[in-house]
């Protein structure tokens, strides 16, 4: 009975959602006539005042940088909530759940791969304003590197203190660079550094700085998430 009701409800919901989006149309201009969409302004201003090659980066970090500040806060809070929900008094070393017993090939291979993954992550977030990728993507790649090590080595551990120091410093850098924008009568997150030349590494003013901070922060936060969940040993009822 419940299933029928649910299916009916979902059918109505699905019908209206689908019809709405079919009305909007796929792959063709869909803005109402007489409206100047902001994306045109974004695309135009990405090259001229900002000298950033990647338009998504310029939106994420500069035009809508405030969203990104909120977003890294959400991740930060997720780590905090995880720690609060799964809180234990203390951990004995090596007392975390082991997903599988890694063979020597896996451990040796992980050791070899780990620096390469970290390097790739760093490359992705340093070049965030030039090529696809950026702070989030690079940070996630670095976190997967740590994940690999955690899976391959039973006793590999990440220092919680170090993680929270990196996270805090990166967060303070982000918010601090934002507050520095108030210099010279600007606004929060104002781009106060010289713009540089398009498609150079040193271009885009504060955008690379913020994206690097985001990269470090996301890497530390996601590693923290994985580490907290992994430290949870099950089978302890009550």
């Amino acid at each position, binding site marked *: 009975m419940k299933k029928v009701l649910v299916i009916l409800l979902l059918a109505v919901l699905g019908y209206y959602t689908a019809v709405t989006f079919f009305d909007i149309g796929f792959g063709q201009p869909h803005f109402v006539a007489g409206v100047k969409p902001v994306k045109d302004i974004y695309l135009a201003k990405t090259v001229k005042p900002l000298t950033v090659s990647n338009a998504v980066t310029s939106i994420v970090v500069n035009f809508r940088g405030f969203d990104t500040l909120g977003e890294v806060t959400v991740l930060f809070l997720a780590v905090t909530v995880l720690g609060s929900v799964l809180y234990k008094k203390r951990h004995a070393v090596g007392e975390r759940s082991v*997903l599988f017993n890694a063979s020597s090939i896996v451990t040796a291979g992980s050791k070899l791969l780990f620096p390469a993954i970290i390097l790739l992550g760093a490359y992705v977030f340093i070049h965030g304003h030039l090529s*696809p990728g950026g702070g989030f993507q690079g940070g996630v790649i670095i976190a997967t590197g740590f*994940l690999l090590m955690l899976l391959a080595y039973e006793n590999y551990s990440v220092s919680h203190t170090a993680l929270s120091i990196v996270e805090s410093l990166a967060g303070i850098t982000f918010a601090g660079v934002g507050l520095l924008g108030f210099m010279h009568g600007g606004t929060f997150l104002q781009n106060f550094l010289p713009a540089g030349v398009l498609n150079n590494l040193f271009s885009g003013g504060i955008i690379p700085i913020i994206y690097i901070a985001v990269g470090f922060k996301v890497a530390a936060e*996601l590693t923290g998430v*994985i580490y907290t969940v992994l430290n*949870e040993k*099950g089978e302890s009822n009550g």
Partner: protein
Amino acid sequence: MIYFILISILLLLMIAASVYSIVQKDLLYAVMATGIISLILSILYFLLQAPDVALTEAAIGVALTTIIFVITIRNTVRMEEEGESKEKFKSAVK
């Protein structure tokens, strides 16, 4: 034509994977199916000219989300229980 077939196959696979992830009783396989959804999504994002999103989805959706699901399954139960009593379940675990 190739493009059309490729996208159609990807979309059909995505629906199939999502149905599988809901229907499958073995939660580990269900989680793998969500990983496959993310993988297909990341290819689709690439085809839809969104490389940034594709990178993010590949890293977060395929790697991280799947692994924390797997860890959770490791810490809880692997099979989905439907309407069995608690005692029976406990003896099954031991």
